[in-house]
């Protein structure tokens, strides 16, 4: 019975720090690239197929086999897929915050194994996979939750960054459901294979804007 822990892990009120991040949306709004419901929908769709696919695959891969060696390998592979230093730092911060939450909710040795992967904590998708496995969530569900989280974070931020009707954001998210399922299915399929074959699709504009955003003196979101 993994539905209840899955819902808990996917809850945007989970105190794992993600609410402080816009997934690049704040920079996109400031640059005028996202300004209404349609540009938001396309932004979310692009994020889902790039950073979302990569994160979902790594989360499912981490969930499928929680061992020190496998997690260290996945962490190194994810590091190599995150060229932006600003995004690497955010990812490790969120990873260690998530493990703290997971330790409270689903304590066990797996959390300690994951925490030991890197002094600053493992990358976020790896932490998410370990937390999901500890909570009894399977690989597909883990991938689906990670893929969904790649768009719900920025979508929630959109409510604060754009003057949209609140219904517009949920309409955009609901409209992405089928694509979230496709991405999660693709991610779960490759999760059991070699780590080097996991997806590495990047989003050039997000990489560039992450570096610019990190230098802003005044900002509402940490990334």
């Amino acid at each position, binding site marked *: 019975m993994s539905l209840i822990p899955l819902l808990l892990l996917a809850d945007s009120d989970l105190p794992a720090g993600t609410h402080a991040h816009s997934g690049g949306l704040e920079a996109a709004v400031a640059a005028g690239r996202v300004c209404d419901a349609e540009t938001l929908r396309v932004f*979310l769709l*692009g994020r889902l197929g790039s950073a979302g696919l990569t994160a979902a695959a790594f989360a499912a891969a981490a969930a499928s086999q929680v061992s020190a060696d496998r997690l260290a390998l996945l962490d190194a592979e994810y590091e190599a897929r995150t*060229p932006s230093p600003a995004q690497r730092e955010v990812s490790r911060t969120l990873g260690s915050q998530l493990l703290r939450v997971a330790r409270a909710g689903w304590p066990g040795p797996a959390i300690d194994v994951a925490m030991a992967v890197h002094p600053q904590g493992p990358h976020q998708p790896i932490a998410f996979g370990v937390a999901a496995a500890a909570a009894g969530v399977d690989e597909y569900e883990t991938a689906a939750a990670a893929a969904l989280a790649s768009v719900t974070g920025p979508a929630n931020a959109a409510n604060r960054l754009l003057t949209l009707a609140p219904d517009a954001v949920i309409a955009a998210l609901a409209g992405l459901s089928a694509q979230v399922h496709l991405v999660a299915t693709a991610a779960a399929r490759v999760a059991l294979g070699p780590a080097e074959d996991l997806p590495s699709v990047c989003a*050039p504009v997000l990489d560039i804007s992450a570096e610019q955003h990190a230098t802003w003196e005044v900002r509402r979101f940490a990334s």
Partner: protein
Amino acid sequence: MKASARIVARTEPDDGATRLKTLAGEAPLLLRRTSPADPLAPARVHLVAGTAGPIGGDELRCTIDVGPGARLEVRSVAASVALPGPQRRASRMDIEAKVGERARLAWRPEPTIAARGANHRVRARVELSADAALVWRNELLLGRDGEDPGSVAARLRVVRDGRVLLDHEIAVGPEYPGSLGAGVAGGHRAVGTLLIVEPRWDRDPPKLAEPCDVVGGGCAVLRLSGPAVLITAVAPDRPTLSRLLEGATPA
């Protein structure tokens, strides 16, 4: 069409000059030796497209072997225009490169243009020795002038001294939902990266250019976990893209 090309560069024991021991291509992947007269300059090879394309269904393969101490630069004479083929099949280009101790490879071809309807995939795998240097330029243009974009995915994986340094794929075009929008290509027609791996940066890290915005584009120099940077840029056209990538190259 299936075709393969192979380049093997080695140093001469007597003078240290780089010699091209193998230079074997077949249409459409033809190779021409264009090394400068100076025997101590890096050896240079130009890729010459023997036919149009790549066209959907083509499977091209290029292997490069740069031996210890050797220096090789690979360029191309013109942009390659990926075109759609029968049954909407994808065209593929696989590149395998191995760069030995103290060796240096610069891969600087002209851009790949994804014509309308094209679905082209490039996969490059580079294996570096711990003290090998690399320059790898990847410029993608979505559609010819005034044309709707085609699709292109370019993945570069670099393993240095047995450990993965970078695994980076840019996948843009109508085959990749949302990729033309604000999150990925940002509505830009030209997207590119320039990877530079320089072993001496292990001891002496370079000073990096600040991220910049230009009219209709932007660029950032991303410091990787290792003596390397990935310069990422988006731009409205090829000249701006090249200027951003080359202009941000650390001294």
